[in-house]
């Protein structure tokens, strides 16, 4: 066989392809894996069970849209029972079984995110979103791989306090559960209230599932607060605290943050305990699912929900908890796709860099407009008011950017 220029080039190309094949194969595995821990049993099983179907929808949607740089993605979900060590074990198992194919992880609690944060080093690190809005996590210098799919609790308090100031309010009370979740924005909230000229007339910590609520209602009445910000509860104190205050004839306006703003829970409380939640307000980073004008992404979810979740509560309505999870997944996928497009390996460092570079992104309806990831979070939200008659949270402010 003679060696001329053409055959030399052909053989060189073939040899290069053979030599480069392992690298290419390594760079592009057959599939990527997105791991998750959810509280499918334990105290937050209700939330976990509502959120779980979102992963099936996300997997289908993302893969139909081309996966990550053409490589399909698979979601692996495990129950944590809402115990941080269990979630950590789930994460370690996902790392051990999936290896480099595991490119992102979704955590189920603030506790887990804090527990795992110092472990995210070297090849143990992955991009990580979660259900948490804990202010401590939104710190890329300390937690470079973790992000919030919305504003931190401190930001949410900022939005509520700004809205109160805009409406001419002058006195606020903070009632919060005696947990890390409840205490998160309180110190910051006090400073912000002072800056806005609002007087914090009551700071009251309670048990997460309020036992001595009448005492708190009495103190609230004595404080004469116009507004009362609730933090650190999912449903625990609505009937007792707000219901009790209404029975007492208090005109105080109650406000909550993300985990106290779910329509399904508000509807259930209204149905079982009466319409005292009418006029309840709170901050929500996302648009509610029924607000689908100019929200193509929500329309896509709605079409898929009708097909995938027939006969379940998700068929016609996607809870805010599920929206938060979908949002966290989409942010991670965007960071992964951006990294893949740049031709880089999907390492935690590369994807975290892409994540923090996301700016002016129109997510198709989740938020009030295009959003940017700044400081490991998306600092936007608006105030909504619940109507007991129609069972809807309707906007009562413009979008705030904090």
């Amino acid at each position: 066989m003679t060696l001329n220029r053409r055959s030399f080039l052909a053989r060189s190309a073939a040899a290069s392809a053979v030599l480069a094949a392992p690298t290419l194969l390594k760079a592009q595995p057959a599939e990527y894996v997105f791991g998750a821990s959810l509280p499918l049993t334990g105290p937050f099983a209700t939330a976990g069970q509502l959120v779980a179907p979102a992963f099936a929808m996300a997997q289908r949607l993302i893969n139909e849209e081309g996966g990550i740089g053409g490589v399909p993605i698979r979601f692996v979900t495990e129950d944590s029972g809402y115990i941080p060590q269990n979630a950590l074990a789930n994460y370690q198992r996902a790392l051990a079984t999936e290896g480099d194919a595991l490119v992102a992880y979704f955590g189920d609690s603030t506790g887990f995110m804090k527990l795992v944060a110092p472990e995210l080093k070297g090849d143990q690190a992955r991009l990580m979103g979660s259900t948490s809005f804990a202010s401590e996590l939104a710190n890329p210098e300390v937690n470079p791989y973790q992000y919030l799919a919305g504003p931190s609790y401190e930001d949410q308090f900022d939005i509520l306090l700004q809205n109160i100031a805009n409406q001419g309010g002058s006195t606020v009370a903070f009632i919060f559960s005696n947990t890390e979740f409840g205490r998160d924005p309180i110190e910051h909230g006090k400073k912000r209230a002072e800056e806005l000229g609002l007087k914090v007339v009551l700071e009251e910590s309670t048990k997460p599932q309020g036992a001595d609520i009448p005492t708190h209602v009495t103190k609230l009445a004595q404080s004469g607060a116009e507004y009362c910000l609730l933090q650190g509860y999912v449903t625990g104190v609505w009937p007792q605290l707000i219901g009790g205050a209404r029975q007492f004839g208090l005109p105080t306006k109650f406000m909550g943050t993300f985990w106290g703003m779910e329509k399904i829970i508000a509807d259930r409380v209204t149905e079982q305990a009466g319409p005292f939640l009418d006029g309840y307000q709170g901050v929500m980073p996302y648009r509610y699912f029924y607000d689908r004008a100019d929200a193509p992404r929500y329309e896509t979810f709605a079409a898929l929900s009708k097909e995938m979740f027939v006969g379940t509560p998700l068929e016609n309505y996607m809870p805010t908890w599920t929206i938060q999870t979908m949002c966290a997944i989409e942010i991670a996928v965007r960071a992964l796709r951006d990294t893949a497009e740049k031709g880089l390996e999907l390492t935690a460092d590369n994807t975290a860099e892409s994540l923090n570079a996301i700016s002016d992104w129109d997510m198709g309806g989740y938020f009030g407009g295009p959003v940017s990831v700044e400081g490991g979070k998306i600092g936007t939200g608006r105030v909504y008011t619940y109507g007991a008659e129609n069972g809807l949270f309707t906007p009562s402010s413009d979008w705030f950017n904090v």
Partner: protein
Amino acid sequence: MINGNLKATYAADEQVLNNAYKRAFVYGMALLCAALPFVANDYIILVAAQMGIILIAVVGVNVVIGYTGLLSLGHAAFIAIGAYSIPILHTLFASLGVPEGIMPFLAIPLAVAISALVGIVVGLPSLRVKGLYLAVATLSANFIVIFLIELDAMAPYTGGFNGINTPEANLLGWQLDTQREMFALIAALAFVTILGVQNLFRTRVGRAFIAIRERDYSAEVLGISLLRYKLLSFAISAACCGLAGALFAYFYARILPEQFELVLSLQLVAALIVGGMGRTMGPVFGVIIVVMVPELLKYSFGIIAGGSADVAALRAPVQEIVFGALIIIFLMFEPLGITQIVDRGFRSLNRWPFARG
């Protein structure tokens, strides 16, 4: 009927591992633990290390519940004390200029000693109350310790509700910065703890504990000081839990108060009951069931049913039910714990083919 093993010398009678099965098991486990860091993946190391930490704590619980007969539901508090002592002591040592390489050699014994002291305080009610009343008294200790850890005034030391990052252990320059390296330390100390406690019950002190368990008034009549030995039992038990807590702090990069709540205390007692109270191997078998089996169930259900979220949503409660049913079955068929089942198995193996059971 065979009711013992022939020993021809006093030395044979005094051996801790006094028959071939015990020797085979202990040496086998030691070999397995030695080999594990070289062959197992990170997840297996994580579960094994978790088992080691819980095992040390359950061995401690066994001293007070299994051997001394004092029911305690507050042992997570001692683990918390041991765990929180580590970052606090490291900060203190750093301010005193103690070299990092010797900090664990001081911090671990001090954490153990602090837990033992707290154990004595928590054990005080045992002088007046017994049974369920003592359980409630110790239960409150758990709540008080967690309350103190979360207290705002303690937050500069404990991190309060937010928890605190923990230091890495540095043994004379050997930085145990991976879970694999930490597992080696945990496994070694777990062996030492089990053998130490096993030996304790060959001494006057251990026999005094057993006498108190059988009937405390009679023990007192025999000259055993209830004050001294009940408090000593609590101190030894709390010391083991303190050791578990110290290792917990070195193993995890961060500790949170919610990790030491009532659920952990109940897990320790459950492991002891399932494994077998008042037996050396009880904690070992109990920890295998309580820590490893849920992970095995998760793993095997995951392989069978797949890892997708909608399947996980269905199989997670099923796993819990299967685990609960397993414990009920064990307790129904052998209330004395898995140790008895294993004993029966070994006995029948010993006598086969001449007799069974």
